[in-house]
């Protein structure tokens, strides 16, 4: 009943393609899983299939449940993701990067997770501290925020920030003092711009962690961001981590992007509309 010939053709095509394709990016998990017992004959086929995806395929079973090692691996990856959300960025990192630390209007982790509005603003004292930090007007202001993954900041900031700052300065742009915001959200950049008068604001922020990567960071950039601006007017560079866009490479790329945004006087879809988007999609 099965159309054997067509099925055979698909299998052959799939196999040929899988063998040709480069290994999937960086999920160590599926590679480490052992073959299900008693299926060595299909071992080679499964190995080829696993190369094509980081999904947890070929993991075998215990009855209709997961094998112990698969179950524990999933729990470990989830625990790492949870830790990335819940743990703070270490003082050591902030010291090494000489980043003064501010806190958004959120008083706690729970408040940060349930009140996005409070993560988008600084309290009175934070606003004063920010204005004290930025004594002269600047072209570009860069800050970091933990967002949904402190591990993303820990893993990428040290490699990215110096390259980014050097890259911006090399274009003759003035850069304000970089700082860190605990419990910060992307749109906090709107208030930061209003308080400092910076033209281009860039926030480096931890992405919501997946099981494959708890270390992924994003950069959001905007020209003269203002509260209530369309979200589409922010330019975003996502997936910054060892398995995606490497931190050093990202630093150089974002610096270039900041130069483009500053020159065009626009970001996001507005930048695209002005035909300056080539740079933004070349990665």
């Amino acid at each position: 009943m099965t159309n054997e010939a067509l099925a055979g053709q698909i299998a052959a095509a799939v196999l040929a393609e899988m063998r040709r394709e480069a290994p999937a990016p960086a999920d160590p998990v599926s590679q480490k899983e052992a073959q299900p017992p008693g299926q060595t004959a299909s071992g080679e086929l499964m190995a080829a299939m696993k190369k094509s995806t980081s999904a947890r395929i070929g993991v075998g079973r215990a009855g209709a449940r997961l094998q112990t090692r698969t179950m524990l691996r999933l729990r470990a990856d989830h625990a790492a993701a949870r830790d990335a959300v819940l743990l703070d960025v270490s003082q050591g990192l902030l010291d090494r990067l000489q980043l003064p630390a501010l806190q958004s209007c959120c008083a706690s982790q729970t408040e940060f997770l349930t009140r996005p509005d409070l993560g988008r603003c600084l309290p009175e004292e934070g606003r004063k501290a920010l204005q004290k930090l930025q004594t002269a007007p600047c072209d570009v202001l860069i800050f970091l925020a933990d967002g949904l993954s402190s591990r993303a900041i820990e893993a990428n900031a040290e490699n990215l920030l110096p390259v980014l700052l050097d890259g911006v300065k090399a274009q003759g742009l003035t850069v304000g003092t970089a700082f860190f915001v605990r419990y910060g959200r992307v749109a906090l950049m709107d208030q930061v711009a209003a308080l400092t008068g910076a033209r281009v604001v860039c926030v480096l922020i931890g992405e919501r962690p997946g099981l494959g990567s708890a270390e992924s960071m994003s950069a959001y950039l905007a020209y003269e961001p203002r509260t209530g601006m369309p979200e589409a007017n922010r330019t975003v560079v996502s997936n910054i981590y060892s398995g995606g866009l490497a931190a050093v490479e990202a630093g150089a790329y974002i610096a270039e992007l900041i130069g483009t945004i500053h020159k065009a006087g626009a970001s996001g879809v507005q930048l695209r509309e002005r035909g300056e988007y080539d740079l933004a999609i070349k990665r």
Partner: protein
Amino acid sequence: MTLQTTLQNKSFSFADVKEVLAKANEEKSGDRLAGIAAGSDLERVAAKTVLSNLLVSDLRENPAVPYEEDEVTRIIQDGVNERIYGELRGWSLAELREWLLDQNTTEAQIKRAAQGMTAEVIAGLCKLMGNLDLVYAAAKLRVTAHCNSTIGERGTLATRLQPNHSTDSVEGITASLFEGLSYGCGDALIGLNPVNDTVASLTQVLRRFDEIKRSFEIPTQICVLGHIGTQIAALKNGAPMDMIFQSIAGSQKGNEAFGFSGDTVREAQALLKRQGTAAGPNVLYFETGQGSELSSGTHCGADQVTMEARCYGFAKAFSPFMVNTVVGFIGPEYLYDSRQVIRAGLEDHFMGKLTGIPMGCDCCYTNHMPADQNDIENLALLLASAGANYIIGVPGGDDIMLNYQTNACHDAAAIREVLGLRPIAAFDAWLERMGITENGKLTDRAGDATIFMRGERS
């Protein structure tokens, strides 16, 4: 209509029906974020008390968004059977709740009565139900639909196989698809969430799905969940497609924020009738989730359960094959933790079934909310007991494209075994022919995706 009550020697009063509905909700972080939640547990119960004494007509006459302003309200109100409504209009919600729960009230009677209810009535009932009430009432109801096969029959639990891939690699997608099939997943749908929402990318994946469906003669449905506009364009371009998908909202503004209207859905439906690959008549797939209106600022001051019920009222008008509440995807600002997610999953399933739509649930969570795999395994078991049409199946429960977790491919097989449920009949027979199951249980071949690569039969 009385909008006040006294509870524990404290008096509570509410401005309007909308406020009563909002404050009668079980606790949800989204209602708090919207600034419309009850201020205390006592106020919540006071609102429930007031709600229980409201009449069906009070709810009908006070839609969350005015008729003149909102297409969703119009679709729901215009779809009411006025004769049946006339029989119900004088009932209090307390009476209606007890009638629903009465073991002498039959499925046929409930389905008839539901034709006289608006979304606000159904949402109101939901707010007066405990979790077991929601399971108990929903378990009476089955809603079937037919695309290539028939979903929702009593005694079945189906799955949407979701072979997502971080870059839409067709071979990677195929690998996850074969994995899922080898566990007995995919009877409701083989459906991909694409990374690239383009006609070319959708078409490429749909062609592969269609080839696999035809060559292995799998009695199922295929869909790639791009934007409705992209899917329409792909279909016009000749892509094989059984169903068209769209995320929907409980207000016209919410649907506009998603970039479509009722007319767009009608266009999709008409096009599928002429050019789709399925037998039909049910060829649409909708997704919902409490809080999506608030997230786009289109909740119109209403609570998220009421807006969710309105999604279902909208969906019903288009006779979909499946409706999926992606319950835990939205994040902790709308549903804070597993307790709220489980509650919402049970609410959505009950409201969907009562509305008369073929309801399933993506029992899921993100990593920034206090929940884990245990919680969604609980929810899946509860919903299977309540007669949900389907759940999701993803390898290991880890969706590498959407970066969240849902049910593993193993879960449906385990739940079917525990509760004595079977896949959709035609797919069940196919699994037995392929030697993946025997008398409904996984065989030694099950879980070996390579059987599809070797073209083997048992």
